[in-house]
């Protein structure tokens, strides 16, 4: 069975979905990603869906699930590169992915994760200093 590759970029994980998602692939990705977050102690997960033309309610829920799981493991999930048509479909489906952060492209997404993580680390420093 084919799997979607998960790349490690600094302390973030990058998942680029370039094939049409079917449900089993989505479940496998969810599982792999959870394991990898723990293994690499990642602070952020970037999911690039710029190549996805069809996102149904199942994939939408998978994104929500991944975000929820990552949050438990102290990692931010950023979905990047959603196409306009996909965004409209998701909204019409009533899936606004409230728990997921979004960004226009991978670059902006990385920035977002770095910003959040940087802020968290600074907080820790301030705590130690005081």
């Amino acid at each position: 069975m084919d799997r979607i590759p998960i790349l490690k970029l600094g302390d973030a994980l990058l998942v680029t979905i370039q094939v049409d998602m079917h449900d089993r692939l989505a479940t496998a990705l969810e599982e792999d990603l959870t394991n990898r977050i723990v293994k690499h102690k990642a602070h952020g997960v970037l999911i690039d869906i710029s190549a996805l033309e069809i996102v149904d309610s199942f994939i939408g829920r998978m994104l929500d699930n991944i975000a929820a799981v990552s949050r438990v493991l102290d990692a931010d999930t950023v979905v990047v590169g959603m196409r306009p048509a996909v965004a409209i479909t998701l909204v019409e489906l009533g899936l606004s992915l409230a728990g997921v952060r979004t960004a226009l492209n991978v670059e902006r997404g990385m920035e977002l994760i770095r910003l959040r993580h940087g802020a968290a680390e600074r907080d820790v420093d301030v705590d130690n200093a005081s």
Partner: protein
Amino acid sequence: MPRSTLAVLAQLLADQEASIVKEWLETLSTGGQLQSGRIREPELRTQCTSFLQGLRTALAQDSNDTAAPAFAPVKQLLADISKSRAIQGFSPTETAMFVFSLKQPLVNAINRSELFAANSLAGVVWQVTLLLDTLGLYTMDEYQKSREQVIIRQQREISELSTPVVKLWDGVLALPLIGTLDSERTQVVMENLLQSIVEQGAEIAIIDITGVPTVDTLTAQHLLKTVAAARLMGADCIVSGIRPQIAQTMVHLGLELNVVSKATLADAFAVALKRLNRTVVSLKTDPRQQA
């Protein structure tokens, strides 16, 4: 073999074409077709001549059924003429008169000619009248169709015109909405906005609803959808331009937008600049500070 009435009519049209066209043009110009200056005499003459020629060809094929293929060129010509008339702003009467005013010259020509026996004249005239009536009605149909097309095109243009996406700054888009927000327009607005976000890499979109006359539950839902879609693309939305009455109505209706909202576009722009770590400063320094 005796020739049919229609074939004889075709013969008559060929023989007397010049005089028929002349009479027809006179009738048309007394009817005021030329006075408005929307159409010139040579153009009208060309239209008349080619219509007569088409009619003759059709009649020569011994057919008076306007649905027959023999009439296709004539109908095409009439369709073109009505279309141009509709665009030039002729009234329906003026357009229909183009065909109907041919009756008089044609009947005159039949009277003058010796091709018909005296006792068959009434029948011939009746046939001519029937034929021209059908063609006249066809002209009206076409005229109406072109008018409808004009209206549809204008509607589309209006809906596109009233939903421009304006770039305010690098990464800041504004969407000034004017007019009522219905489902169809929301769709257009959403598509325009999302496309512009992708194209310009915008981070912040300001939706200005100063020009929206009323905000009811449906409009609010449409707004929220647009905001949600933009967020999914990775852009933040700010809603601005909520007028006092509308704010009151919204509160009375129990509507909550759950998005950043500002009273004016200027306020929203200020927020957007702040988020991009930019600011607007006065170039002139305060003289008191220099002293």
